């Protein structure tokens, strides 16, 4: 199953330079008071196959809106988004989505949640079982297969939520501040686990966060967004070697340099006086 996913992502690479191309996209929301709220303005962003891109920006800058547009939850007000060369119209079933809160289906057990996206037409029963087992083990949830989400800790639900999106092997995973509400230690553990999983699978990941350290630690490339209406301010490449040690990321060569550059771009957004 894993080989298959890699093979298909390789062929995608030959076909297109970009798995996602956000082309001059704006999004305006109508608020209940009939005012127009401009959430995103002329966003242009390309994501290459297999790339781990993080998007940082101040809160309320439209980071989540951008992800939801790529997932096709709603349509953009202007511009277009190409996915593997085709314009997204309606729901984009080629992406997996990890929402801010875990949003596991509370009425399904852990294993039913993880297997939920495995279409019986694409996966035979033994294949499904193997796939579910593989991802439950990967998430360190072995022994908790029959548990309901209400019985899990925050970190465990998070992991289950991530592997639920991975299990049906969409070529792209969108993650919306998945580690936001967790405590610092659990967060690091999960970042580490996410990188380990990604090292094996190398799906394309677009990861939204407001944490600069997280953004640098995980990414191949960090995209910085401005205050509302969100625009893309800059993007930096992170050349740190992989595999990375999340727990001592500060000591890793290239971290300081990348973080420094990112902070230089970002601090203007926080309105902290530049010297």
């Amino acid at each position, binding site marked *: 199953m894993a080989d298959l996913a890699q093979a298909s992502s390789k062929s995608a690479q030959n076909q297109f330079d970009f798995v996602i191309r956000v082309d001059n996209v704006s999004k305006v929301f109508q608020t209940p008071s009939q005012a127009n709220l401009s959430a995103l303005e002329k966003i242009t962003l390309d994501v290459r196959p297999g790339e781990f891109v993080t998007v940082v920006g101040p809160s309320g800058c439209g980071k989540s809106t951008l992800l939801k547009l790529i*997932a096709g*939850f709603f349509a953009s007000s202007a511009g277009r988004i190409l996915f593997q060369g085709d314009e997204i119209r309606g*729901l984009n079933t080629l992406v997996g989505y990890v929402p801010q809160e875990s*949003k596991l*289906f509370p009425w399904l057990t852990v294993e039913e949640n993880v297997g939920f*996206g495995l279409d019986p037409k694409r996966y035979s029963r033994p294949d499904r079982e193997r796939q579910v087992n593989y991802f439950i*083990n990967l998430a360190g949830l072995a022994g908790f297969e029959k548990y309901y989400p*209400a019985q899990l800790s925050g970190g*465990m639900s998070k992991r289950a939520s991530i592997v639920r999106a991975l299990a049906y092997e969409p070529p792209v995973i969108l993650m919306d501040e998945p580690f936001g509400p967790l405590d610092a230690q659990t967060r690091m553990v999960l970042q580490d686990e996410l990188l380990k999983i990604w090292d094996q699978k190398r799906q394309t990941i677009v990861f939204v966060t407001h944490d600069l350290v997280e953004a640098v630690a995980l990414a191949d490339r960090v995209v910085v967004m401005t205050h509302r209406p969100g625009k893309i301010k800059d993007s930096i490449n992170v050349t740190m070697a992989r595999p990375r040690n999340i727990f001592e990321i500060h000591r890793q060569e290239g971290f300081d340099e990348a973080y420094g550059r990112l902070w230089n771009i970002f601090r203007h957004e926080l309105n902290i006086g530049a010297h």
Partner: protein
Amino acid sequence: MSNNVSQEKTPGAPSVDVVTARIGSALSLRGMGITAVRVAIIGGFLLLWQIASGPWIEPFLISSPSRIFSSLITGFRDGDLLQHTWVTFEEIAIGFPVGAISGIALGYAFGRSRLLAEIFEPIIIALNGIPRTAVAPLFIVWLGIGLWSKVGVVFLLTFFLNFFITYTGMRQMDQEYIDLARLMRVKGWKLTFKVIFPAISPYLFTGIRTSIPFAVIGAIVGEFVASTEGVGFFIRMSAGIFKTADVFVGIIVLMIMVIIMDKIAAVIEKRALRWQTQTEHIQIQA
């Protein structure tokens, strides 16, 4: 990944079980006390009733527990009461499930189709404004004096309650669950039965359980209006000839009917919503 599990607080099965067991034993002690008080209250009330009947209040007004009990026994032994109970049960057994299922189905349809809801919502609300038992005589005119007019009234009462509660559930549903499921290419019956219905199932059970007493009310009202058998008929007839004990017997039969139906629904609910019950345990803990 699994080597890191231990670094996290894991709600391991043993600790949860231990806590639950401790609460369980505390509850049963407390529960025994509660039961004792409850029995005392009911027993005291029945005793007072028994004493008051005769010396203080005319028995034909309030009868008495002993008279009611013996009427209950003779009623069932003669088979007369059994027949009436069966008739009423039949009316409910047809009208209630049909009403509940149609109410749920329409509530679901309204929740899914904005157009449908926009067109029909005011109409449904207006129809709901009609005191439904007032329509019962019409059902007699349309469907005759037998079984089907009562089934109609039961249906009517059950339908609206289930419709409104299901529709409320649909509107409160978290859109993100649907979005996520659809992203996983889940649609059609799987979306309906594996996502939407489970998500609104607490509402469905609330609807079903609140409508149980109303279904019985529907059957009795129908029988009051015009009938030749059924518990409602039995009550009205007994009251007409001042057989007060039999009136109470009829009331008790209806009460037991409601309790049994509610218990059955409660058992099904507990099974269907077992993914929720665990949360309740944690709330007790806090």
